[in-house]
């Protein structure tokens, strides 16, 4: 299991780097999908198959399709790639890179200090997720539901056509 975890982690990091460096938006999105899929595999190896499946269904399967949909509507050609190439220069990415490096160092330090536990120590099935969501996290769930409903009503209002 550990080997699979490290391989999928490597794939996730590599594909995320590719997402940032691609000039073509759709190619970048493809790498983002790969990244999400590898994160799903990581969840699976960590004993959370339910979250893994939801990651694929909701993030990779639904939200990313909408991203691709929007990209297709925008019809970005070679001009957009040229603009993208101009934007990616060291001045733009040095700040975020330093901040991310600090986080990375922290992560390595935490891993080295041995306060982590082995991967896949407990299997959390869908039933356990459901029970904890609807008992200890019920308020959070309700709030998230209300937020989504507000988004839905807002989208409906914006997209409404006056029939006259």
């Amino acid at each position, binding site marked *: 299991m550990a080997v699979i975890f490290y391989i999928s982690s490597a794939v996730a990091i590599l594909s995320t780097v590719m997402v940032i460096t691609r000039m073509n938006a759709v190619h970048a999105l493809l790498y983002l999908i790969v990244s999400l899929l590898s994160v799903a595999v990581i969840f699976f190896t960590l004993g959370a198959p339910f979250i893994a*499946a*939801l990651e694929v269904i909701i993030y990779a399967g639904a939200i990313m399709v909408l991203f691709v949909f929007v990209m297709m509507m925008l019809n970005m050609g070679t001009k957009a790639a040229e603009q993208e190439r101009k934007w990616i220069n060291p001045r733009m990415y040095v700040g975020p890179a330093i901040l991310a490096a600090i986080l990375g160092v922290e992560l390595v330090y935490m891993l080295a200090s041995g306060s982590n536990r082995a991967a896949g120590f407990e299997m959390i099935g869908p039933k356990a997720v459901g029970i904890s969501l609807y008992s200890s996290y019920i308020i959070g769930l309700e709030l998230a539901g209300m937020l989504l409903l507000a988004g839905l009503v807002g989208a409906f209002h914006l997209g409404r056509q006056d029939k006259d």
Partner: protein
Amino acid sequence: MFELNWSALIAIGVLLGVFTLAPGLIWLERRLLALWQDRYGPNRVGPFGIFQVLADMIKIFFKEDWIPPFADKFVFFIAPGIIMLTVLMSFAVIPVAPGVGVMDINVGVLFFLAMSSLGAYSVVLGGWSSNNKYSLLGGLRAASQMISYEVFMGLSLLGVVAMAGSFNLREIVNAQAGMWNIVPQFFGFVVFMVAGLAEMHRIPFDIPEAESELVAGFHSEYSGMKFGMFFVGEYVGIVLISAVITTFFLGGWHGPFLPPMVWFFLKMFVFICFFILLRASLPRPRFDQLMTWGWKLMLPLAILNLAVTGAVLVAVNQGH
């Protein structure tokens, strides 16, 4: 070691079965459509024209595999592969008979849904990478259609999941030993069937292809075996949807007298024939009609079905 070999054998068997079933299905579809349209269908090559598919296959293998110069080559190349991959992966969780099945994971339902939602990429990316306005329109239609119908495809299955109390397909089949789910979950069955047809963009819902409006929709620019992959992928998709409906709503392998595997294939076959019948009889809806159907009829029906199922289950459990 024996355990591993056994599951590998089953996997190869399922793969071979699917790949022989799909061309057989092409032949069956042509014959049945002909039967319902007062024609004969292929009847020249071999007995009842069964080798027509073989001839077509040989032809399509030797066709020029042309990639248009204006296409995005990388995406154009991987798009047909995605549909085959996702559809074949979905077969992994289908339990054919007790002890026969490739994979037995406890989130089988979600795995199937995940694979079918990934299948949308094939059509969308194929349409986009062709760099052709008709393909693009087909891809756009496919994206919105598949996203919309995925929503209540999942919701319609939740009633079944609630009744079985598990996401495991094997346990879902076992829970139907007394009564098949088609009786208590009839509305879930109807919604799932419609959503499954739309998900595989089969003919009443073949709006992404719509040959009368969009040349051939998302695969206008595809030729040779790349087109063949889309084509076979669609037929394997029909087999998949039939198998999944059998598993979820018709009690899988359960049935009197005959061995379990025969029952499974019999039920699957009935559904395949039913889908061909739908193709022979129903016209293609307009796109706004499709969306209205989906969001204003199917989605409330699925949610209502889920709510009633939940209420009844709670009432029954409290009675005990």
